[in-house]
């Protein structure tokens, strides 16, 4: 493979992602933040499939894919190997929410407990997208997916999102952050902080999926923004287990976010489900309370 031409992104165009793909944008921003001196470990998932159809690759940095669930363990080995050779490349995992919240949990827990100097980035599109939109531990309450379909006696997904950042902070991770592709500079800043913090760091970046969620491909960034503005996604940083900073917002009702996505359409038709919408509003309110994100009137907007 030849070097990436000057002026080009390290995550190069021509890959097979859908138009408006949130994860593709996350990959591009990630490499902008890491620069060239990095080795990327990528789990099986959308990103691996759309970015590396042999014999082509979108990755302008060394990249390895092994399995769905073992990126953190492979990264552990890479880090140990580099250390032994006296090399200085940073090791970054990028994995979807299925690979992170569910099947990869064992390897991630092991790598974080052992304290490897790696940065683990989860691109969270809230379901298993490349296999046909099945629920994961990151799927929000009441989202309809192909394995948690809404029906006469089901609201869709019956459980709230697993709190991965808290779980990894509980492992003693020195730096844990959430981010959103709607705020690229913030995401890049967090990636730079993570790779420059010794030890295992975790970033969970919200990456809306137009195919899986059911919205127009031109709406990806708006959708990511609405998640933040409703309080259903909170951008925050944790250092050594303590929340340092959370992005403040003047909150909008969750309905504005839900009504624009097919995965929540059963909340609005054929009959409006005020009970479920209210439950989701309670989740957003609880987020706002927990992270103190509400901008009260007269307070300056951050």
């Amino acid at each position, binding site marked *: *493979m030849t*070097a990436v031409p000057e002026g080009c992104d390290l995550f190069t165009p021509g890959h097979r992602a859908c138009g408006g793909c949130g994860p593709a944008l996350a990959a591009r921003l990630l490499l902008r933040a890491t620069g*060239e*001196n*990095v*080795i990327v*470990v990528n789990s099986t998932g959308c990103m*691996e*499939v759309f970015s*590396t*159809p*042999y*014999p082509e*690759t979108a*990755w*302008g*940095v*060394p*990249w*390895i*894919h*092994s*399995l769905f*669930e*073992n990126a953190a*363990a*492979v*990264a*552990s*080995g*890479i*880090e*140990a*190997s*580099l*250390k*032994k*050779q006296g090399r200085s*490349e940073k090791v970054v995992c990028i994995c979807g929410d299925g690979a992170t919240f569910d099947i990869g949990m*064992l*390897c991630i*827990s*092991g*790598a974080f*407990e*052992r304290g490897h100097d790696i940065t683990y980035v989860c691109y969270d599109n809230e379901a298993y997208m490349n296999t046909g939109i099945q629920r994961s531990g990151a799927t929000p309450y009441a989202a309809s997916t192909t394995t948690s379909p809404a029906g006469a006696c089901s609201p869709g997904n019956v459980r709230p999102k697993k709190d991965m950042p808290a779980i990894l902070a509980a492992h003693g991770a020195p730096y844990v952050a959430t981010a959103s592709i709607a705020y690229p500079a913030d995401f890049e800043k967090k990636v730079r902080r993570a790779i420059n913090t010794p030890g295992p760091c975790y970033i969970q970046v919200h990456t809306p999926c137009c195919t899986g969620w059911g919205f127009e491909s031109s709406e990806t960034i708006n959708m990511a923004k609405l998640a933040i503005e409703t309080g259903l996604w909170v951008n925050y940083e944790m250092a050594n287990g303590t929340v340092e900073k959370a992005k403040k917002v003047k909150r909008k009702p969750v309905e504005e976010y839900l009504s624009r996505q097919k995965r929540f359409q059963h909340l609005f038709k054929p009959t409006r489900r005020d009970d479920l919408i209210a439950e989701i509003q309670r989740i957003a309110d609880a987020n706002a309370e927990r992270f103190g994100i509400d901008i009260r009137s007269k307070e300056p907007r951050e």
Partner: protein
Amino acid sequence: MLEIMEGSHAVAEIVKRCRPQVIAAYPITPQTHIVEALAQMVADCELDADYITVESEFSALSACLGASAAGSRVYSATTSQGLALMFEVCFNVAGLRQPIVMTIANRSLGAPLSIWNDQQDSISLRDSGWLQVYAEDNQEAVDLHMIAYRVCEDHDVLLPAFVCFDGYVLTHTYEPVSIPTQEEVDAYLPAFNPYQRLDASNPLSFGMYATPDYYMEFRYEIDRAQHRAKEVFAKAGREFARQFERDYSAPVEGYRLEDADTAIVAMGSICGTAKDAVDEMRDAGKTAGLLKIRMFRPFPAEEIRDALKGVSTVAVLDRNISLGSGGGVGTEVKAALSGSGTAVYDYIVALGGRDIRKKDIAGIVDLAEEGRGDMFYGLRTEVL
């Protein structure tokens, strides 16, 4: 110089001298003594390796994969359930062409839970792309590790290898072994020279996704590398013999086979017992012999055909069972000898640590000569 030591410690000593830079392993009986000894060597600064205390065998091999891809010589060891947990990674290591050497302290698989020896674990991974060699005794186990690194890392091979030796029967047995010195090992095994590695100054993509247009060719390349490994193994074995005067260059080894009418075929420590059984049968006037299979992958079908020319009856001792079919070794020996006119009978023996003695082997030879075979031998019918 010969020293009396436990099989596991002998293996740990040679692994140390092979200078792995990264070790990732999870303890499991009867492999445990190997990885404990290596951990102590690292703790004592006798071995300059990074020892990753992973949380599972699945992560052990995954970490080895990453470490190898980044350009280090790596080592792991496992057995039984641990190897089963690595199943998925095993296929990937071979597919990604990483020359990892892993010791298998052969053990049965549950259920029911059994910690004792048979060869079900490694045999079950026969299709994974790993080279597989089996040691008869601890000296052979030691020596095969050096040869395995040479073969795996050869740029004409680039495949991983299991060095298999029987759990407890060898791992926990004290017998005299000669451990080559560091200088001798260094002279035989050069530093790891990766064909490709993850490196920011030369970015490559490893483990991409292959459509039907490309997948089959990757599998073909692995299969070709398996076949090339036989020649590379022979060469590495000949050079080993020149340096250490112990010859493992042949993938199979005959014992009193030249004029034999009936041949026993076996792998691993059972071959020692079988040699004694052959001697006793010879003393009793029976023209029996033994063919020991040292290399199971790549499978030495041609060498087996050559070695068993002139033999009318073959009795394969299989310490594994492909349930619903037959023993793994027997099935392949039958395929290798098909059309040769030789009668091949398969015997499932000594599963889950059941003892097998010289008189059992003589009894099996009698059964084969009577044309009775393809059975479990030594079943306790009273408990069925």
